[in-house]
């Protein structure tokens, strides 16, 4: 039986996605923070060297009679090469007048604070540069002159270092992500494991097993399992009530009918009046019709009920056919109909619900006997053909009078030629219901030599 469940994204996948999302977020944050730290560290390093170079130049400034003496120490520029190979520009001014260096190099816009370097970004000759500026007073001819020293350096090396650090940060992030993915997979599996094992345990049960789940479950699953247990116990009660109801209904309908029939028969025995006898007979037939209709309706209900509660077992069809045929022999004998079970192979087995299969076969044989005139023949046979067991009941009855199988198997549909036979019209419906439930099919055709041939196909047991 197919159960269509409205399926949403699995817990495992959902968990995994969430963990991966967190992992991506953390990896990204890791990358960004490493980058930020690295960037500022590199920038601070460059700044401190730039500042040191600027101060080194400023400290060599001397006042004299001829003006300011500038003696740039070799190390001032040499140390700038320690980070990398960047271009260096410098400018030394007194006021706004350039003493030496690159006089297009921009002056700082903010006031300077002595030998504490002021750092700023600037563009020079189309290049982005980092500049440091200091100011120092130099005494020339007894007069203090403000001398500014500006050293600028391109940022290529810094960017190279930052890029390589960024690459490492990215690798770190990716590495972290990969580890996180692995851990996420593991975590997701571990978290879902109790659910999977619960599902497995419930799934292993047969359809009739409605015992409550006793195994320990994680606290989060307790409400689910409680609900499941409650549901199963209600289902179990409902199912047994259904069965009880069908049985009780049968009892309460049939017992009075049996009484009525017995009394009618007694009356029939005790009267010689032909007219009265015919009346009693028709009364008895009505009783039989009611009993049969009630019986088949209940049987139909039971078959439908069983269809949802199938408990399959391995059934040897040849034995079943023999058993049921034998059980109908008295009825057939009474009717003057010869009921024959044709010889058949003894290894035709199917996996099916025994009660459903019996109900179907019983209705087929019952029907055949019912519609076969006395001295007629009903043949029951079972053969295997193309993966199916074919249960066949042939009669030499009055046939279908051109009616189609589809019509005959509808509920309460009867053939056009059966007014004189007791029947409810549910028999073939039951057979069809069973065929559907057992994944087989049902065919009924008129035989050329007269009578009908009804065949029920049931899938053979796969070996």
């Amino acid at each position: 039986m197919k159960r269509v469940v409205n399926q949403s994204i699995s817990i495992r996948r959902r968990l995994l996605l969430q963990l991966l999302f967190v992992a991506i977020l953390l990896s990204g944050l890791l990358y960004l923070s490493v980058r930020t730290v690295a960037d500022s560290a590199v920038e601070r390093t460059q700044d401190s060297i730039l500042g040191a170079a600027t101060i080194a130049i400023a400290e060599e400034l001397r006042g004299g009679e001829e003006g300011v003496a500038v003696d740039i120490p070799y190390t001032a520029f040499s140390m700038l090469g320690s980070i990398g190979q960047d271009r260096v520009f410098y400018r030394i001014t007194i006021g706004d007048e350039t003493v030496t260096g690159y006089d297009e190099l921009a002056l700082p816009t903010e006031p300077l604070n002595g030998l504490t370097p002021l750092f700023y970004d600037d563009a020079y000759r189309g290049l982005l540069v980092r500049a440091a500026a200091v100011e120092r007073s130099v005494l020339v001819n007894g007069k203090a002159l403000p001398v500014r020293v500006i050293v600028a350096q391109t940022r290529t090396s810094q960017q190279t270092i930052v890029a390589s650090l960024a690459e490492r940060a990215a690798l770190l992030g990716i590495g972290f992500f990969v580890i996180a993915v692995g851990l996420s997979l593991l975590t997701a599996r571990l978290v879902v494991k109790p659910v999977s094992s619960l599902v497995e345990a419930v799934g292993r049960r047969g359809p009739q097993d409605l015992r409550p789940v006793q195994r320990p479950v994680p606290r989060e699953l307790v409400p689910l399992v409680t609900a499941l247990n409650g549901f199963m116990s209600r289902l179990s009660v409902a199912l047994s009530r259904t069965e009880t109801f069908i049985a009780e209904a049968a009892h309460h309908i049939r017992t009075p009918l049996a009484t009525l029939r017995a009394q009618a028969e007694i009356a029939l025995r005790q009267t010689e009046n032909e007219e009265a006898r015919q009346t009693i007979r028709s009364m008895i037939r009505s009783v039989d019709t009611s009993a049969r209709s009630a019986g088949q309706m209940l049987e139909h209900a039971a078959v439908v009920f069983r269809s949802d509660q199938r408990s399959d077992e391995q059934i040897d069809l040849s034995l079943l056919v023999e058993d049921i045929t034998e059980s109908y022999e008295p009825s057939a004998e009474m009717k003057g109909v010869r009921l024959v079970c044709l010889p058949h192979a003894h290894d035709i087995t199917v996996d099916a619900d025994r009660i459903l299969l019996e109900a179907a076969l019983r209705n087929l044989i019952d029907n055949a006997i019912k519609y076969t005139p006395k001295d007629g023949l009903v043949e029951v046979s079972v053969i295997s053909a193309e993966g199916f067991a074919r249960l066949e009941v042939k009669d030499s009855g009055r046939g279908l009078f051109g009616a189609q199988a589809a019509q005959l198997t509808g509920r309460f549909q009867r053939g056009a030629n059966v007014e004189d036979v007791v029947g409810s019209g549910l028999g073939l419906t039951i057979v069809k219901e069973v065929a559907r439930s057992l994944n087989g099919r049902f065919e009924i055709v008129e035989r050329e030599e007269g009578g009908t041939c009804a065949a029920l196909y049931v899938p053979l047991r796969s070996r």
Partner: protein
Amino acid sequence: MRGALCSIAITLIASTTLAFDIEQQQLFQGQGDETLSILSTTDIGIFRPVIAAFQEVRPDISVDYVVASTQEVYRAIYEEGAQFDLAVSSAMDLQMKLANDGLAQGHSSAQTDALPDWARWQDQLFAFAQEPVVTVVSQAAFEGRQTPATRSDLIRHLRDDPETFRGRIGTYDPRKSGAGYLFATQDARQSDTYWRLSEVMGGLEPKLYEASSAMLNAVESGELAIAYNVLGSYALARLDQKGAATIIELEDFTNILLRTALIPANAENPSGGAAFLDFLLSATGQRVLEENSGLPRINAGALAAQSYLRPIRLDTGLLVFVDPLKKQQFLREWSAAVVQ
């Protein structure tokens, strides 16, 4: 590919309008239309085998080779805006200034990437030869004396026997020679001994030169007893032939000069310049330089073998001595010490 006529015309215009002094010029005609112009401080005689080897590999390129002094090479590129496809110079500080101030263009290839860090600056300035700055002494003048091994030795010799050496000491005039200024500043940077030596030399009426070759001639002729700070490659070339002089690598320190090349930012044919540069740095080019031109190839192993060898680093420190005030001050001090 430009047309041949156009190329020649531009070359002619460039040559005729040059506002700097040229010492030599020669066109090495190739088979194709492409012309490569090189402005160099290295004599044509020394570079000819390299150019010939280059044209074997690239016969389609004609090479217009122009020789000028280090100052003129620097001035031509920096101030005159002369268009050359490659600028070759032994004045590392000036080349550094050109590169730092954005007058070179970047070039990167397998050959440039193979250079050790100290032999290149960014992707702009590349060293293709390394040579020691040596002292050459006349064997006749040092007959019976121990040849000096350090600058202190040299000072002692000069103090002990001033009359022998008076007027017979030669060195570069840093005021006129870019290489001489570089050597002097690097010496001064390395050790204070340089100033003592300069003062001693100054007291002995030194002769000042603008080129190594002239100094070597004077040593050979016996006019000079000592030539201080001479390019090793020139000295070695002379010594092989004659033997009247001894080459000394002073053991307190010996600067190693790097000959460098750069592709000017305004090059007409930068790919030609790059091709020649790559050839200079290639195994073939380096071999030809060393064996046929006498310019030692870039060799980190040779430097590591002798601890006193100090390559002049290609870094921004070189810019310090290019600063006009600094230069003015240095030359004032130098003059005070040497010229007296």
